[in-house]
């Protein structure tokens, strides 16, 4: 668990993004992206494949350099969790946590490792090699490592990809718990279902641009009335919204 004290949502922006742009050759991945993220907020970055979700998160994580724009973090520390678990599969759960805790210069390494094992619910499997864990459990360790440096903002790149439904539910409960405890979480996904359930705020991106920024209810409202005879379904609402915006 993060060493940061719990923060109330909306206490003020912890991350400010202003005019980010990024191109790869002729292709513009991001065009003049600006957004503020509040403390303790769960922000979902949505969009079809190629919308620039991963590029945005990579720039926020400091892995990719933007062509233009500015990022300001009030606390300075931003944790990042890659889409594919970045773990040493031959090492045990505990060894992975301990290694990265040492590398993060965490003061109380053993205490932090113990807390992370509690938080991930993998205490009993602490001595198992990571390769023996399910994809969902590997992703929990992946996220726990992203939290070792006690970041105020945690970036998750499509954290649920490749997980089965029950693993996905457990993962999102874990992530929601982090936000409840005050960590700001920004994650990318193309699952509107997840974003509608586990996102306080949705940023929809398409063709390098932000086409929506608000809550799911606002997105459903923006999508217009549901055709008669169709059931309530976030996916239908999202597709209707995209079509309405010409995507």
């Amino acid at each position, binding site marked *: 668990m993060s060493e940061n004290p719990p923060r109330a949502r909306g206490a003020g922006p912890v991350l400010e993004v202003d005019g980010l742009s990024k191109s790869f050759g002729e292709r513009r991945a991001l065009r003049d992206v600006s957004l503020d993220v509040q403390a303790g907020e769960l922000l979902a970055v949505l969009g079809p494949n190629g919308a620039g979700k991963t590029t945005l998160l990579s720039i926020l994580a400091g*892995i990719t350099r933007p062509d233009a724009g500015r990022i300001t973090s009030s606390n300075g520390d931003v944790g990042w969790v890659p889409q594919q678990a970045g*773990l040493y*599969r*031959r090492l045990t759960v505990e060894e992975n946590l301990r290694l*990265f805790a040492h*590398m993060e210069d965490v003061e109380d390494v053993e205490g932090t490792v113990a807390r992370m094992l509690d938080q991930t619910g993998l205490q009993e499997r602490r001595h198992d090699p990571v390769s023996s864990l399910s994809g969902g459990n590997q992703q929990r360790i992946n996220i726990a490592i992203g939290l070792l440096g006690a970041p105020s903002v945690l970036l998750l790149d499509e954290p649920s990809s490749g997980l089965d439904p029950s693993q996905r539910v457990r993962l999102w409960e874990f992530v929601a718990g982090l936000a409840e405890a005050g960590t700001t979480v920004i994650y990318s996904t193309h699952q509107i279902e997840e974003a509608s359930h586990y996102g306080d705020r949705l940023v929809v991106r398409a063709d390098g641009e932000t086409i929506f920024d608000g809550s799911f209810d606002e997105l459903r409202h923006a999508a217009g009335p549901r055709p008669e005879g169709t059931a309530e379904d976030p996916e239908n609402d999202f597709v209707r919204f995209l079509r309405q915006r010409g995507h």
Partner: protein
Amino acid sequence: MRWLLLKDLQLLRRSPLVTALLITYPIVLAVLIGLAISRSPEKPRVAFLNQIPQDAGLSLGDTGGFSQQEARSRLCAKIECVTASSRAEVEQKVKDGEVLGGLILPPDFLSKLQGELTTNASEPATVEVLVNQDDPLKAQIVDDRISSLLNQANLLLSEKITDVAVNYEQLLATGGEFEIPFLNQTVHVLGLERSEQILRSIQGGLSPAQRSQVEQVTDFARLARENLALANQLLSSIRQPIAVDKQVVAGSVPPLDTFAVAVAAAITLLFVTVLLVSGSLALEREENTFTRLTRGLVSREGLLVEKALLGTAAALVVTLLLLLAITPFESIGWSRIHLIVPAILLAGAASSALGLAIGAAAREVRASALLAFALALPVAFISLVPSGTVSKGLLDVIHVIAGAFPFRPALESLEGALSASGPSIGLPFLHLALLTVAYLAIARIALRRFA
């Protein structure tokens, strides 16, 4: 960086089979190569069938000749004679690969040879050689061996014949007793010297005209005697017309055993280090940890240095273990440890840097292992091609290619470190240092597209 190093060692400990293979395979390979290039070839095994009647021998007049026993013992000093009782047995042994070739002396061999030496016999003495040329390399070896054996036999024969000719000339010049071969009769030969003396002693009582004629004969006898003495010297020189005076103009040659140890150590070091380091770097990408690590936890340069340290440490441990293992069989100059350790460390650093460049370029563990083998093995072999065995142009190309990789300077460093008579270590050390820097730079550039 310390934690990364510990992690890599932990990973190695978790993969005992891979680690054992990584260490033992190059050591076995290196020792075999070292032995193969350092040991003089064993005597070739040749199936030998002698069909010559037992009591027959080669007579060369009163100076002697060859008995079959003598000829056989001299021949079998050069080859390992495997006695066969029939032609079929010789053929079978050659076909089975039990022997390199078969040598058959036919029943009439000595009589034909005797005929060549005593008459103008038209049919030469011939030996029969059976070979199994199942591959070009073996065919070349067999041809070389046969040619060498034939030259030695002919040389031996010519030495004996020269001795006989010298004796005959001596007899003609100075006179003496001569035993006619096969007839057991001894005749007295007056000789040119005595003939000249006799003629000079009677010159005083002859008429001027007769004296003039006798003088021509005595002059001829003197001239013939003097020229026969000269011919004698010439014939004697044929025994060994060219003497060898070897002068070393370039290269310090350590003992062959030291060279073999250096080759084994250099190959082991190169393979272990390159495979370990390239695989370790590529693994960071395959485990998706590279981006996580280089996002603030360690710089890319720091990661390269950590892997280079891992490789250099592994090179030191494995090479020292190899040298310790060899110590009971070969004399290792442990008193030169102050040179051996720096040589291993520099060679390890350069090989690690090469491994990093390979790992960064290949980006996958399997591809990097394949690339490491594909590069290291041929480079090690071409670096061992001695000068003079290929054309100058090709040798220059080989030197340029070999110089771009750490094996050759590593070998020279280890040779120089292991033996005082080895090459100087200054230039190889500098060469290794430059290669380390160059390959680290290549690896750093390749890391730009690594994640």
